């Protein structure tokens, strides 16, 4: 067990390091602005006094490394500074929105993961038949279509033509869970469509790869039925890649949510990011980017660790 713990700690350290480098990039990118934040925000018409006042307010007179460590220290404790537009603390606005985004992602994941794995195994079992080909075409189409296309098609049919679900997913904290689930059904379904397609293809590919291995051949030769080969011999070895697939797609869910949130006017962190990019509200942009990057890295890390835990061979890298 000590072995595994060691590896996990090593991976965590590596993830943390990556996150640190990314925070430098996110902070440094804003430093690359022509002039500085004050000039960029106030524009060319600003008087010298205005710019100077804003510089002082933001503490721009100190050197970049000092400000970076202040910003990082604040970020770790959940303080991202004040928004340039509303002058309110960024963390206040982000908190609720982030939980909304997580809610949507978890909702979609709950529907998508079981369906995708089940269908992936099914098409691997019936590979190279008509069903496999049809599934291949359908999943490719669903992956290739931009999210907003799927979203608008769903809106057109489910809300405009059939009037089954609302087209605008406005939710607030005091709604019941059932209400929330109904309101956010269409955005969740949009993401389910994309993610199921991805996961299905990856599950199929990883199972089919395993089907080429000698022990499967052996099982077949001794007359084990096809479904049993998959469930008993292939699946235990396929868990590692499947866990990987699931985690990668969850990471995708968290970030792919931006477009979906904008289409459905969902009060999540993605929409906030897009709004603040348009308004050039840099503290908010930085905070959102850092949160997205952190979630993304965390899930990738989870994928790595999950793969190591389920596959003993990965515990002893050559």
């Amino acid at each position, binding site marked *: 067990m000590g072995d595994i713990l060691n590896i996990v700690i090593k991976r965590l350290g590596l993830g943390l390091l990556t996150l640190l480098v990314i925070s430098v990039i996110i902070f440094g*990118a804003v430093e690359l602005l022509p002039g500085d934040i004050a000039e960029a925000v106030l524009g060319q018409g600003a008087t010298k006094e205005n710019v100077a006042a804003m510089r002082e307010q933001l503490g721009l007179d100190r050197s970049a490394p000092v400000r970076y460590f202040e910003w990082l220290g604040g970020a770790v404790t959940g303080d991202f500074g004040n928004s340039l537009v509303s002058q309110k603390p960024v963390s206040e606005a982000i908190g609720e929105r982030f939980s909304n985004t997580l809610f949507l992602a978890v909702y979609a994941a709950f529907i998508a993961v079981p369906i995708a794995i089940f269908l992936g195994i099914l098409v691997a079992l019936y590979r190279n038949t008509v069903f496999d080909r049809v599934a291949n075409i359908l999943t490719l189409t669903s992956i290739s279509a*931009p999210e907003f296309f799927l979203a608008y098609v769903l809106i*057109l049919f489910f809300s405009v033509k059939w009037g089954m679900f609302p087209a605008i997913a406005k939710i607030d904290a005091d709604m019941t869970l059932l209400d929330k689930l109904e309101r956010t059904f269409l955005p969740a379904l949009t993401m389910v469509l994309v993610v199921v397609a991805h996961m299905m293809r990856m599950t199929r590919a990883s199972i089919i790869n395993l089907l080429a291995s000698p022990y499967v051949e052996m099982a077949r030769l001794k007359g084990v039925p096809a479904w049993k080969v998959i469930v008993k011999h292939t699946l235990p070895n396929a868990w590692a890649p499947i866990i990987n697939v699931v985690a990668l797609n969850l990471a995708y869910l968290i970030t792919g949510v931006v477009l979906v949130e904008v289409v459905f006017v969902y009060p999540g962190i993605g929409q906030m990011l897009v709004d603040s990019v348009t308004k050039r509200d840099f503290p908010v942009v930085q905070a959102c980017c850092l949160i997205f990057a952190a979630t993304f890295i965390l899930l990738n890390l989870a994928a790595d660790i999950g793969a190591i835990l389920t596959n003993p061979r990965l515990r002893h890298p050559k």
Partner: protein
Amino acid sequence: MNYFIIGFYALLIGGSSLAAFYQKRTAFLLLFSVTLVSFVMGIVGGESALWAVTILAGIIAFSAGVSYSFREFLAIILPKESAKIMRTAPLTAAFGLFIIFTYAITGIFAPIIAPYGESEIISQAFEPANDEMLLGADQLGRDMFSRIVYGARNTVGLALIATFLAFFIGAIGGLLAASKGGKFDQVMSRIVDVVMSIPSLIFALLLLSIFGTNVVTLIIVMAIIYAPRVFRLARSVAGNIVVMDYIEAARLRGEGTWYIIRKEVLPNATAPLIAEFGLEFCFVFLLVAGLSFLGLGIQPPTADWGSMVRENATLISFGEITPLIPAGAIALLTVAVNFVVDWMLYRSSGLKE
């Protein structure tokens, strides 16, 4: 029950019985599942659902026919070697090639095809379709059809340029890293790891918020974001090649790194790199479309599919499908490219089982 429904089921059941009688397993499975599906859909959705199934089947049959003829056409006009490959291509790949061909023609000859200019205001806002305007007018009274045609040039063109740039940087970096190895390889790979661990849309938003949105920054940002993917693939493909004996021989002959990359590695790495180019194009294209949709990509009045969807999105709530057309155009092209890439990957290595 009317004649349409009776005819519909008679055709399907008759077809599947015939297929079963002549032992055509695939055709039987397909026809019979369509029968079952339309049975369920008919009960739920009534006659209109059956019409939808019929129209869908018609569209699929039509595109299959078009792809078949296009494949035969290519097989005839191409030289012998490529014609042989073309004959074994699946219909989906032929379909993809046909769509790409159509888009290329539309993009290149946009000014000739489009009846009006891309920013020419010719009527009232949201004017419905009439004889002069095939798809009606957009939110400013510009001809929707002309703008879609011009979009083929602007959106696809920008994505293509960005992909070329990303590919150029990434492939050269990856090939160099693989052939040189050592410190250069280590440093490049670590940089790439970091860039790839930032989600692409988020990174694009961050960079665009800082450098502003114009076409040149957009292309450079895309290249920065997607070059690492190409780098990784190029490096891993080339990594398998540089350990070969003939590379060793070339090194012992005293050839330089550049010569080895150009003459020894590149010819053996073309197939996966071309497939990667297709995939990369899809990613860049979707990201550009997404950014434009968010209002942060190609700026008006340039006609662009992503922003057209956003500008006309209000029409959806009136049950109009016009805003879906540019979105569908994006989807169709990515699907087409993916079909072709799928076939190429299958050919170059593929899941053989």
